[in-house]
C-alpha cells in the first residue's frame, strides 16, 4: 500500500513537471492582466523578495551581464588579457569570416554535430521514454538505471569512454572481436572520431528521457480510450496522440539540445586530450574559441567568435520558436 502510494506520488510529480513544460511558452500571454493587478503593496512585498535574491542578482550582474556586454567591446579590440585592449575595428570579424579556414572548419563540424546529435538524442530519448512508460514489474529500477548516467560528471564519463572506445583493449571492440568483427579505430581515425563523440552523447540521454517520460505521464488516458473505441491501433495512437501531445516537451528539448550542441566542448577536450583530433575532425567551435582565448592569448578574436556564435544560436533558436506554431500542440 505504502509503495503504491509512493509510486502514485512519483507519477503525480512527473505529471506536474509535464504540465509545467506544456505551458512554457504561454505566460507571455498573461502579462497585461498581471500588470493590472500590480499595486504599491505588491511592489513593497516584491522588493523584499528581490532583497532576498539580491546575492544571485548581484552575482549575475557582475559575473555574467557585465562581462557579456564588455565582450561586445572586446570583440572589436586586440586584447591578450594582460595589457589594455587596443581598438582594431572590425578586423576580428573580417579575419574570421574571410581569412580563417579553421573558423569555417570548426563551424562546419559544430553544425554537423548539431544536425546529427540533436535529432538522434531526441529520437533515442523519446524511444527510451516510451519503453520506460510501460507498466511492468520493476520499472522504477529501470528508470533509475537509465537516468543515472546523466548525472555522472562529464569528465568522468569521458575518461571512461576513452577505455570503452579504445580500439585495442576497449570494451566495444572486445565485444565485436568475440563475434569475429574487427571494430573501428574509434578515436584514432578521422572517419570515426566525430561519430564516436556523437554516440557518446547518447550516454547522457537519460536527462531528456525523464522529461519525455513526464510529458507522457501528462497525456490524458481518455484520449487513448476514445481512440481505441474508434478502432485505432498502436501505431495510430502513437502517431495521432502520443507524438502530438509530446511535442511541447520535444520542442523544449530541441531548443536546449541545439543550444548545448553549439557549445559542445568538454567531451571533445577531454577525449582528444585538448587537440583537434585526427585531421582536425573534432575541432568544435567552442574548442577553437578556447584555443584562441587561452592558449594563443587572443581574447579579442575569441570574443568576436563568441558573438558570432551567439548570433547564430539566437537565430537558430528563434527560427525554432517561430516554427513551433506549425508542429507543437498544446492540447487545447
Amino acid at each position, binding site marked *: 500500500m505504502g509503495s503504491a502510494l509512493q509510486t502514485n506520488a512519483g507519477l503525480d510529480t512527473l505529471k506536474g513537471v509535464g504540465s509545467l513544460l506544456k505551458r512554457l511558452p504561454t505566460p507571455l500571454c498573461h502579462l497585461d492582466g498581471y500588470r493590472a493587478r500590480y499595486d504599491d503593496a505588491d511592489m513593497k512585498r516584491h522588493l523584499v523578495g528581490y532583497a532576498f535574491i539580491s546575492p544571485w542578482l548581484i552575482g549575475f550582474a557582475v559575473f555574467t551581464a557585465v562581462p557579456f556586454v564588455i565582450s561586445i567591446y572586446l570583440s572589436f579590440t*586586440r586584447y*591578450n*588579457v*594582460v*595589457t589594455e585592449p*587596443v581598438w*582594431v575595428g572590425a*578586423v576580428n570579424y573580417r*579575419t574570421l569570416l574571410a*581569412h*580563417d*579556414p579553421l573558423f569555417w572548419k570548426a563551424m562546419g563540424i559544430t553544425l554537423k554535430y548539431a544536425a546529427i546529435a540533436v535529432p538522434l538524442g531526441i529520437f533515442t530519448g523519446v524511444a527510451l521514454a516510451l519503453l520506460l512508460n510501460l507498466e511492468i514489474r520493476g520499472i522504477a529500477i529501470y528508470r533509475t538505471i537509465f537516468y543515472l548516467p546523466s548525472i555522472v560528471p562529464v569528465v568522468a564519463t569521458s575518461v571512461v569512454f576513452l577505455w570503452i572506445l*579504445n*580500439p*585495442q*583493449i576497449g570494451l566495444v571492440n572486445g565485444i565485436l572481436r568475440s563475434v569475429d568483427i*574487427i571494430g573501428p*579505430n574509434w*578515436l*584514432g*581515425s*578521422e572517419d570515426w572520431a566525430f561519430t564516436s563523440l556523437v554516440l557518446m552523447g547518447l550516454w547522457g540521454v537519460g536527462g531528456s528521457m525523464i522529461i519525455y517520460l513526464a510529458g507522457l505521464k501528462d497525456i490524458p488516458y481518455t484520449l487513448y480510450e476514445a481512440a481505441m473505441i474508434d478502432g485505432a491501433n498502436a501505431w495510430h495512437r502513437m502517431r495521432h496522440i502520443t507524438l502530438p501531445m509530446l511535442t511541447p516537451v520535444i520542442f523544449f528539448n530541441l531548443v536546449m539540445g541545439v543550444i548545448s550542441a553549439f557549445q559542445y566542448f568538454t567531451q571533445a577536450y577531454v577525449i582528444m586530450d*585538448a*587537440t*583537434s583530433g*585526427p*585531421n*582536425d575532425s573534432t575541432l568544435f567551435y567552442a574548442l577553437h574559441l578556447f*584555443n584562441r582565448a*587561452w*592558449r*594563443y*592569448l587572443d581574447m579579442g578574436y575569441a570574443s568576436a567568435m563568441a558573438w558570432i556564435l551567439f548570433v547564430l544560436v539566437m537565430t537558430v533558436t528563434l527560427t525554432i520558436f517561430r516554427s513551433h506554431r506549425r508542429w507543437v500542440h498544446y492540447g487545447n
Partner: protein
Amino acid sequence: MAIDQTSARAGRTLLVLGILAFVGLVISFALPKPAERLYPERIPVRFWHMWTAEWKAVVDDIADRFNKSQDKYEVIALSIPPSGGETKFVLAVAGGDPPDVMAQWNPVIPSWVDSGLLQPLDEMMPPAQWRQLHSDMYPIARKIGMYKDHLYGVTVGLDLWACYYRPDDLRAAGVPDDRLPPTLEELFALGARLDRFDDHKNLTHLGFLPEGYLHTTPLFGNGFYDWESGKLTIYTPDNLRALQTLADAYQRLGFDNVSRFQAGIDQSSFSAGWPFISGHYSICVDGQWRVEQLAQYAPNLQYKTAPLPAPTGGRPLASFAGGNFMIIPKGARCPAGAWEFVKFWSGIENPERAAELYTKGGWLPLMPAITNAPAYQAYLKKYPQFKTFVDMLPSENIQTTPPVPYTIYLTDRVSVCGDLAMRGLQTCEEALRGLEKEIAQEQARRKEFGYAD
C-alpha cells in the same frame, strides 16, 4: 493539529540540517590544512610549479634546502594543475597577484614576453655575470630561455630526447656489438627486422619508430627556425625530407595498425607501464628522465642509450629538447627573493651545490660547470645511460620550438601537418605547403592587428 504537524516537520528539517552541518564541520577539520609558514619572519617568495606526485616531493625538498641555506626569504612552493597552469598564471598576472616565480615547461616565453607578462632576467644580474652566463650556458639552454636578446627563462632541468634500446633484441636481429647502426636509414631497416605481427597482421611489437614531426626535423636540418636569420623556415627540402621519412615509416606499417597498437599501450606512462619496459618496443626515442624510472621500475632490465643516428647528409648529435625553466612575472612582489631562488636552483653562482639538486630530479644541467661538479659526475657513474644525454648537450644541432609569439599555434599546426602526411591523407608536399599557407595566414592576421611579428 495542522500547526503541530508543521512544527514537527520543521523540527525534523532542522535536525537533519544540524546533523549535516556537524558532519561538514567534522570533515572540514579532518581535511589537510595548508601548511603553516615555517619562517613567518622572513619575506615570502611564492613559487608556482606544475610537478606532481614523486616530482613534487623533489621540488618541495629543493625549496626546503633553499630556505635552510639563508635567513632572508622563505620560498613557499605551490603545485598547480598542469592542465590549467598557464591560464592560472596569466589570470594571476592580469589580476595583479602573480606568484614571485614560476617553473614552466611549455614554450610560452615568446608569447608571454610579447604580452608583457615576464621580467627580463639578464637585467637582474650585473652585466659581467650575464656575459659569463651567456657564454657558459649550453646552446640549447640559450635557445629555450632567450627571446629578443634577453633572458626570460633560466633552465633548471633540460629535457632531451635520444634512443633507448634493448641489446638483447639487437643481438637477436643479428647486430653483433650492441650498437645502433650509423645512419637513420639503417636504423629503420633494423627496426623493420624487429617488428612483430600476429596472425592477422596486427602489430604486436615495434622495432623502431621516431617521435613526432617536430622532434624529427633537427636530424635533417634547422627544423622550423633559422637561428642565424631569426626567421621561420617551413617549406624547406630538409623539412620535406624529414616528413617523407616519417610518412614512409608509418605507411610501411600502416598508420591504422600503428595507431591501434599504440592505443593499447600506455606510451606516456611514468611507471612500469612504459612500453619499453613492458617489452613492446625494441628501440624508442624518449627523454632522459626515463633512466631513473628504469632504475626504479625495471632495475634488472638490460638497456642502452644513444643519440639518434643522423640520416645520410643529415646532422649528427641532433635532437629536440624542451626545458623546465624559471620565469619571474611582472608584478612579482619579491623579484629579488625569486631571483635568489632561481640562482640557487640553477647553479648560476654555485654550480657545485646545485649539481646535487639536478640529480634529485634526473635533470640535465644548465652549463658544463654543473656537469663537471663531483655530485653530477657521481650521478653519471651511477647511471651510465644518462651520460649519452649529457654528452649531446654541447651540440648546436639540438633544436627546440621556434621562438615566435605564436609558438603554440605553430606547434599545433605542425602536429596536424605531420598527422596528415603520416595518415596518407595528403602527400608530404601538400601537407607542408598547407602548413606554410596556414602560418602565412596567421602572420598576415597578426600584421593586420598591428603586431610587430
